[in-house]
C-alpha cells in the first residue's frame, strides 16, 4: 500500500511536486498508507492536474475519455438488422388485344392494391401475433396493438424498382425489407410478408382498375406517433438562447455575487433551458391523422360536390354527435353546436389531389387525442362513402380486361450479419468531440476567471 501511495503522488503536476513533494513524502512517512489515504491522494492528484493542465492535455484527456464513454454507450444500444427479399411481379394478358398501356396501368394499380392490403391493420396484426414470430413481445405488454402496428409499418420498407427494356413494360421488381433487433426474426418476418404478398397476387385482377364508382382506400387512417405541435425542440432552443441572454444581462448589472462566479453563465442558462423545456409540456399536443381514398370514374366536379356535402352542417353535426366519438363534450356544454362545427372545420382538411392515374380525397384531422383523431378520419371516410352512394351511379365500361400477375422470387430473405444501426464508430467519435468541446469550455472559463496556479519554489524562505 505504501508503494501504491508513492505512485499516487506521481499523479501530481511536476511543478507542484517540486514545491511540495518532499513535504508530502514526509507526511506519508508519518501517517502510513491505507486504502483511504491512497484514494485521497488519487483524487487530490487528479484535481491538481486539472488546475494546471494546458488546453492540449485537457483536450486529449477529455477527448479520450469521451471516446471511451461513447464507445461504451454504443455497446449498450441494441443493434438493428434489416432483412430483404426481392420479388419480380410480371403481368400477363388474358385478353391478347389489351393495349400495352392498359397492361402497365393495370400492373401499377394492382401492385398498389396489393401493397395496401399487405400493410393493412388486419394483415400486420396477424403477423405480429403469429406465435412462431411473436414480434414486439415487450412493446405489446406496455402499448396498445394499434401503436405496435404503426411501429411495424415504420419498420417495413417496400420499394419498387423499374426493370429495363421490354420486361419493364409489364413487370416490376419489389424489394421488401424489415428492420428488427433480432436478425433471425427479421428474416422470418420478411419470409412471412413475401409469402402473404404472393398469396394476395393469386387472385385475378381487372386491368382497367379500379372497381369504378367504389370508394377505395389508398392510405388507411394513420395513428400518429408524434405530435405536429408544439415543436418542443424549437421551444427548448429558444429557452437556451433566452437563458444565455438573461445570464449575460444579469452579469452586466452586478459587480459581485453569484453571477460573477465561474460557470454562473452556464448554470443560469441550464436552469432557464430546463424551465422552458418543462413549461413546453404544459402546452397540449396536437396530433394529425391522415388518410387517402379514391373513387374511380368520378369527375373532379363530382368529388367537389361530395366534399361540400360532407362538410355540410348536417353531416358534421352527425359526426360531432356520434356517441362513439364523444367529440367536443366540454365545448358543447358552453357553446352552440354551430360554433362547435366551425371549430371542427378548422381542424379538418378534406382536399382533392390529382395524380396521373386518379383524383384522390386526402382527409386529415388534428386534435389532442391521437386515437380519437384516427376515429374521426375513419368517420369522415364513412361519410364520403355515403356521399358517393348519393351520387348518380357510374355506367360500367364494357368488356373489362382481366390480367393475372406472376410473382417470382429473385432473392430469398437474407439473414443479416451486421447491424444497420447504431453506428458505433460515429457515437464514439461524437463522445470524443464532446470531450474536446468540454475541455475548451473548461480552459476558457478557467483562464477567464482563475489565474494559472503558481507553485514557486523560491517562495520557501531561506
Amino acid at each position, binding site marked *: 500500500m505504501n508503494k501504491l501511495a508513492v505512485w*499516487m503522488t506521481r499523479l501530481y503536476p511536476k511543478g*507542484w511536486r517540486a514545491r*511540495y513533494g*518532499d*513535504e*508530502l*513524502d*514526509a*507526511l*506519508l512517512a*508519518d*501517517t502510513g498508507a491505507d486504502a*483511504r*489515504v491512497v*484514494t*485521497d*491522494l*488519487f*483524487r*487530490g*492528484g487528479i*484535481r*491538481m492536474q486539472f488546475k494546471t493542465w494546458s488546453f492540449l492535455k485537457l483536450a486529449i484527456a477529455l477527448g479520450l475519455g469521451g471516446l471511451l464513454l461513447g464507445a461504451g454507450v454504443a455497446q449498450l444500444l441494441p443493434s438493428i438488422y434489416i432483412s430483404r427479399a426481392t420479388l419480380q411481379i410480371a403481368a400477363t394478358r388474358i385478353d391478347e388485344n389489351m393495349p400495352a398501356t392498359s397492361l402497365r396501368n393495370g400492373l401499377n394499380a394492382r401492385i398498389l392494391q396489393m401493397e395496401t392490403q399487405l400493410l393493412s391493420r388486419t394483415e400486420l396484426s396477424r403477423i405480429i401475433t403469429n406465435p412462431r414470430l411473436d414480434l414486439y413481445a415487450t412493446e405489446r405488454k406496455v402499448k396498445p396493438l394499434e401503436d405496435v402496428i404503426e411501429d411495424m409499418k415504420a419498420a417495413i420498407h417496400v420499394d419498387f424498382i423499374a426493370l429495363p427494356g421490354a420486361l419493364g413494360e409489364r413487370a416490376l421488381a419489389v424489394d421488401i425489407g424489415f428492420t428488427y433487433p433480432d436478425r433471425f426474426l427479421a428474416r422470418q418476418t420478411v419470409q412471412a410478408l413475401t409469402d402473404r404478398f404472393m398469396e394476395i397476387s393469386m387472385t385475378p385482377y381487372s386491368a382497367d382498375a379500379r372497381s369504378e364508382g367504389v370508394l377505395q382506400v389508398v392510405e388507411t387512417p394513420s395513428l400518429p406517433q408524434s405530435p405536429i405541435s408544439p415543436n418542443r425542440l424549437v421551444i427548448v432552443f429558444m429557452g437556451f438562447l433566452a437563458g444565455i441572454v438573461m445570464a449575460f444581462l444579469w452579469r452586466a448589472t452586478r459587480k459581485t455575487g453569484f453571477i460573477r462566479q465561474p460557470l454562473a453563465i452556464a448554470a443560469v442558462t441550464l436552469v432557464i433551458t430546463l424551465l422552458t423545456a418543462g413549461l413546453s409540456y404544459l402546452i397540449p399536443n396536437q396530433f394529425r391523422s391522415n388518410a387517402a381514398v379514391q373513387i374511380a370514374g368520378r369527375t373532379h366536379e363530382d368529388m367537389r360536390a361530395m366534399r361540400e356535402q360532407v362538410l355540410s352542417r348536417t353531416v358534421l353535426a352527425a359526426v360531432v354527435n356520434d356517441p362513439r366519438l364523444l367529440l367536443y363534450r366540454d365545448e358543447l356544454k358552453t357553446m352552440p353546436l354551430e360554433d362547435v362545427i366551425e371549430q371542427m372545420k378548422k381542424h379538418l382538411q378534406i382536399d382533392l389531389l390529382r395524380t396521373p392515374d386518379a383524383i384522390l380525397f386526402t382527409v386529415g384531422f388534428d386534435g389532442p387525442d391521437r386515437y380519437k383523431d384516427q376515429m374521426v378520419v375513419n368517420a369522415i371516410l364513412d361519410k364520403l362513402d355515403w356521399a358517393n352512394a348519393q351520387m348518380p351511379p357510374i355506367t360500367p365500361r364494357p368488356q373489362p380486361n382481366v390480367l393475372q400477375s406472376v410473382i417470382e422470387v429473385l432473392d430469398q430473405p437474407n439473414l443479416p450479419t451486421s447491424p444497420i444501426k447504431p453506428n458505433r464508430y460515429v457515437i464514439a467519435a461524437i463522445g470524443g468531440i464532446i470531450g474536446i468541446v468540454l475541455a475548451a469550455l473548461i480552459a476558457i472559463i478557467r483562464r477567464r476567471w482563475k489565474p494559472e*496556479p*503558481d*507553485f514557486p519554489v523560491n*517562495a*520557501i*524562505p*531561506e
Partner: protein
Amino acid sequence: MSDPTLLVLASLAQGDKHGYSMMLDIETFAGVKLGPGTLYGAITRLEQQGWIRPVKSTDRRRPYTITPAGRGHLQEQLSGLQQVVKTGLSRLRPA
C-alpha cells in the same frame, strides 16, 4: 464545519505547525480526519491566497504559519458561521 481550508487556518491560529501536526490537531478539535491529499490541496490554496506561508526549517516536515491576512479571513469566516450557529440554535429552542 468540514471545509479543509478553514480547519487548517484554525489549526495554525494556535501556532506554527507542519502537516502531520495539523492533521492530528484538526482530528482532535474538529473530529475530522483529513487525508494527505486533501490537506496539501488546502495548503496549496491557502499559500496561493497569501493566508499562510512556509516557515524556515531544515526538516522535510516544513511548518507553516498563518499570515495577518489569513487571520483576518479566518475571523470573517468564523464570525459568519457563529451568526448562523446562533440563529439556528435559537430557532431550535422550544418556544
